[in-house]
């Protein structure tokens, strides 16, 4: 297996992008990444695109072909594959791209992720997102996606004394970070009181504990590390790309205070990259809900299980903290176009490791981690990236 590097990144602004269609978003992110990598179209060997539910959001499946067409690559007839793993679609697309390059099958691979969520109205988006849960045994009975994370939140609060204020602090921090990210959906800073006063969605989760409905796309260009320098002065090495799986339903899991798949992926990723959790300088974690970030920093070993709320309160994960988490604003503030999220996380980590993150730059960031989750924890992908 060869070492793999990220040689280019690109993403659209995230948010309610009323004027742009799915294909325009895909084109924009892809072109930016290709420009950033400085590659020619002829050099691209394969394409992977993550999308959670294009069929239901815009009535369009077969987006592998669509991506090739919008990129103007049809005459090359390269393989293009759509990848789906709910909210981890982007992360799994990254993993597929990584495998394709590492195996030696392809040299230059473009990985994309995209979702256009605002073309449906009312509760339809909620309903589509619920298809990431177990339709027959969870959603059928009225469980919503926020509802499943609320079950985890209530459990965590009961078991460890995590508070609503601590949950709110995740949102406050991520909105602050979002205010420093020009591409974030929410650039508005909020207070703990704002979160607690926002309408309840699924107790104990308020509206401001939840990530938004967003449009957006992100892309990354991968190449074997040995030739990466040919394209860029700042190749970022993927020192681990691990995907793990668990039951589709929350009730089928061995525990409810953690995402065992994420714990498993993290453990293997640290082993592969030969680092310890404390070596991570910056992390993007899957904060689809505030509780998810608290559980994530525990699962990733940044803090002991049960201490995530307290650690957040103490500023461990703040921009100037020991391990800054979700410097982009996270799913919470940057936005969460589900299929794009996993690739957008890679964009942020690459920016941080290149030292190009502007106002939100973490000093001397050399090792970054991205943690992407599908559903309520049925899929987890952990990537560790390093400056070389």
């Amino acid at each position, binding site marked *: 297996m060869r070492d793999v590097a990220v040689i280019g990144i690109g993403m659209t602004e995230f948010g309610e992008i009323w004027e742009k269609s799915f294909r325009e978003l895909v084109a924009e992110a892809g072109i930016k990444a290709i420009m950033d990598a400085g590659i020619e179209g002829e050099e691209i060997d394969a394409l992977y695109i993550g999308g959670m539910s294009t069929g239901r959001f815009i009535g369009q499946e077969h987006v592998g072909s669509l991506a090739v067409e919008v990129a103007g690559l049809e005459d090359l007839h390269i393989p293009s594959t759509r990848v789906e793993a709910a909210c981890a679609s982007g992360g799994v697309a990254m993993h597929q791209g990584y495998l394709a390059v590492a195996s030696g099958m392809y040299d230059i691979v473009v990985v994309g992720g995209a979702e256009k969520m605002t073309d449906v109205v009312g509760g339809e988006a909620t309903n589509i997102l619920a298809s990431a849960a177990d339709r027959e045994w969870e959603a059928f009975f009225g469980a*919503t996606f926020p509802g499943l994370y609320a079950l985890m939140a209530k459990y965590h609060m009961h078991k460890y004394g995590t508070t609503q204020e601590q949950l709110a602090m995740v949102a406050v921090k991520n909105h602050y970070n979002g205010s420093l990210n020009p591409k974030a959906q929410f650039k508005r800073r909020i207070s703990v009181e704002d979160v607690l006063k926002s309408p*309840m969605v*699924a107790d104990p*989760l308020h509206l401001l504990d939840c990530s938004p409905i967003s449009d957006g796309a992100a892309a990354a260009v991968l190449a074997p590390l040995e030739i990466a320098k040919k394209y860029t002065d700042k190749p970022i090495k993927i020192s681990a790309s691990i995907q793990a799986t668990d039951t589709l339903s929350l*009730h089928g899991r061995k525990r*409810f205070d953690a995402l065992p798949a994420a714990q498993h992926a993290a453990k293997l990723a640290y082993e592969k990259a030969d680092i310890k959790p404390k070596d991570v300088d910056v992390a993007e974690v899957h904060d689809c809900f505030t509780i998810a970030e608290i559980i994530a920093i525990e699962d990733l070993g940044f803090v002991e299980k049960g201490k995530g709320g307290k650690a957040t309160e103490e500023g461990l994960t703040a921009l100037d903290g020991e391990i800054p988490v979700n410097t982009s604003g996270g799913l919470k503030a940057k936005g969460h176009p589900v299929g794009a999220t996993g690739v957008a996380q890679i964009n942020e980590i690459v920016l941080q490791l290149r030292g190009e993150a502007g106002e939100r730059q973490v000093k001397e960031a050399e090792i970054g981690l991205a943690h992407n989750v599908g559903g309520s924890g049925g899929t987890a992908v952990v990537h560790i990236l390093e400056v070389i």
Partner: protein
Amino acid sequence: MGVPRYWREIPSRYNLIGKKCGVCGKIYFPPRSICPTCRRKSAGKMEDYKLDGKGTVESFTIIRVPPPEFEGKSPYAIALIKMDEGCYLTGQIVDCNLDDIHIGMRVEACFRRIQEDGKRGAIYYGYKFRSLKS
């Protein structure tokens, strides 16, 4: 949702018919075709097993923003319930003051309308849970 998809789940939805591993004896609900502990040894040996319907609330939430199929029904409680047989499932808790629901609460299954396919479509029934009076 089409009618066949609902119809084929009737035994489990009406009567909590799960599966018991013929090798290790562990009970599963919703039904599984393979025991994740015994795996290949359990293939073809998963037997129907009816749950007693009693359990304990492991966690719960109150859904205030419902999906389209549950519009007009909110707020309602969804719980993660540990059944006395050891398996967990997700279901609504009904017939109680939402403020009275708590982790550790004892519940029993009851038979309710779950959702309906619009005004003209089929009505889907199944289990929900209510407080178990001692």
